[in-house]
């Protein structure tokens, strides 16, 4: 099936993120979010009142408080009333919603932000609450345990081994030394097994952080950014929740989303993959047919900074920023949600070839 080509051109024109840290006890959510919103607005010269649509992503389970996003909304300046929406998942899906809104012609600019403060609770336990409440949640299988089952399945089929996983960790954290915002830049020991076969080094850091992007259409985007990162396609797909009915060594939802986003129509030079665990990069590379010519996670990826609910949006932002800088002409960005890559979003971003 030929991917649908949208009538309106939409681009990411600015990206900002916080320094990702293990804890931010001295900051409330809004205090954490606000500087990043100011940063992304400053890059475009826009004020809140100039933005046609705002969409955010977060999770109340991380904060331990209902409707926690309403407080963070204060940082946007929501009075007089603004056009706003919220998704209770990674901000990548908020970006998808904003993209759709822009495609409808209802808005020409959008602010998308998301944040996660994992430090107040235990994120491994918190994430068990997203599981099926009848068959899974009562067993409290944590996020590392589920990723480890997937990793072992990959080892069993010969798709990877522990040294190969360690190499992914090493490469990611070495790349993160060029990323001023990363939580874990540089070499670090693989460490003991957390849940075998995954060691400390195979797992993402736990931390707090924020990301924000601005989207704009057509000539508005060209006014706001010297080299806009045009969204050529974007799609997201979901698989069955139950792990026992899925082939954990594959990610057909990623492949399908990529197909529908047009990822396979021309080679990409960069891929920002949302793979919190080293083993998940193996799955995603297989699903997306990425070879050695593609620069994967030059930012260091989620292994270097994984603010839950913002880490997916950061992949889109990092891919866009590489296009803004002229480091990439055609990039793939991926975000995931749910256990063992259950839900996957893929976007294809391009810079205009004549503007470098």
């Amino acid at each position, binding site marked *: 099936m030929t991917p649908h080509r949208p009538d309106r051109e939409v681009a990411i024109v600015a990206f900002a993120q916080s320094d990702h840290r293990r804890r931010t*006890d001295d900051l409330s959510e*809004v205090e954490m979010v606000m500087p990043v919103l100011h940063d992304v607005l400053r890059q475009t010269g826009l004020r809140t009142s100039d933005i046609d649509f705002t969409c955010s992503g977060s999770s109340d389970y991380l904060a331990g408080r209902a409707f926690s996003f309403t407080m963070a909304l204060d940082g946007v*300046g929501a009075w007089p009333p603004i056009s706003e929406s919220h998704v209770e998942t990674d901000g990548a899906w908020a970006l998808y919603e904003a993209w759709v809104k822009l495609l409808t012609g209802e808005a020409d600019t959008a602010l998308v932000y998301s944040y996660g403060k994992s430090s107040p*609770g235990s994120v491994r336990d918190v994430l068990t609450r997203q599981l099926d409440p009848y068959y899974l949640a009562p*067993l409290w299988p944590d996020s590392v345990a589920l990723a480890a*089952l997937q990793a072992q*399945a990959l080892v069993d089929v010969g798709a990877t081994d522990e040294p190969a996983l360690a190499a992914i960790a090493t490469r990611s954290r070495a790349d993160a030394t060029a990323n001023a915002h990363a939580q874990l830049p540089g070499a670090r020991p693989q460490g003991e097994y957390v849940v075998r076969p995954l060691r400390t080094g195979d797992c993402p850091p736990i931390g707090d952080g924020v990301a924000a992007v601005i989207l704009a259409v057509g000539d508005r985007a060209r006014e706001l950014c010297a080299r806009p990162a045009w969204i050529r396609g974007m799609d997201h797909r979901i698989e069955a929740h139950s792990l026992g*009915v899925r082939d954990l060594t594959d990610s057909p939802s990623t492949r399908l989303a990529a197909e529908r986003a047009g990822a396979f129509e021309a080679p990409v030079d960069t891929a920002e993959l949302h793979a919190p665990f080293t083993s998940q990069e193996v799955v995603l590379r297989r699903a997306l047919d990425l070879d050695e010519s593609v620069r994967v996670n030059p930012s260091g990826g989620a292994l270097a900074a994984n603010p839950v609910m913002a880490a997916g949006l950061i992949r889109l932002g990092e891919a866009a920023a590489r296009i803004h800088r002229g480091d990439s002409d055609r990039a793939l960005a991926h975000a995931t949600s749910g256990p063992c890559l259950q839900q996957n979003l893929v976007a294809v971003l391009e810079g205009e070839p004549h503007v470098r």
Partner: protein
Amino acid sequence: MTAPSETLRAPLVVEFPFTRSLGPVQSAFLTGLRERTVLGVRTETGEVLVPPVEYDPATAAELRDLVEVGATGTVTTWAWNPAPRTGQPLATPFAWVLVRLDGADTALLHALDAPGPEAVRTGLRVRIRWAAERSGAITDIACFEPYDSDPVNEPAAHDGRFTDPVTGIVAAARLDYTYSPGRAQTRYLHALGERRTVGERCPSCAKVYVPPRGACPTCGVATTDQVEVGPRGTVTTYCIVNIKAKNLDIEVPYVYAHIALDGAGLALHGRIGGIPYDQVRMGLRVEPVWSDDGRYPDHYRPTGEPDADYDTYKELL
């Protein structure tokens, strides 16, 4: 800008016992576990799904054709958990396993009791260890244990009927947090400890927020200038509460009000005491009465001043 005060932190426990109803398939499956019977559901293509679902994950077709599968099975993948966490099936190191029960085509997630990772492998034969007390829940399977047997691959027909079927579960969960209120609220709480109420002024629109949240929602900028407000204030609006809240030691009816402290740019909430509930009115002048430990105003009482003029507080309603 004031110097940051010491970060406050306090335990925050969130507990939620969701009561969930079961459809016909889940009810049969969980009741079956109580009776040491494992049921699966057969799809249109003849595949047997265990644990069973009501709709085919591939076609969305409604599934109702229940079958009984074995209590023995084969590990399809595994992960060794050296440090069990609260709520997990075993307190000693164990393997997480996906097990394809004999007669089933899909795998069930659970725990495997084994002496160590060297005793576990994909393809290992296992059997269910039933919980001594069973109530109709996935935890009726205490765990799996290694068990060398030949697979029996033919599922048996089962009508899914049991006496006294389980129709619902209580999904209990507890999450422990350490709550930190951030800079603005920390400053507010520290001041309350000194029986002062501080708000924060927006540098852009000059509105004073009490309690401060760190940002002006109108301007979207940080509020950093501290302003002492009150202690007196004006009732801007109120309601009369007639139903006693659980664990609340206040006689009903009582009055809950919006109170605009002098100097504040918006009203905060508080209980009104020291006056019969039916004599509270808009414009009533009030002052805080501090709790015994002096860490927050317990309620507000009339000051005895004349009522405030409507024009002085109409913007704060």
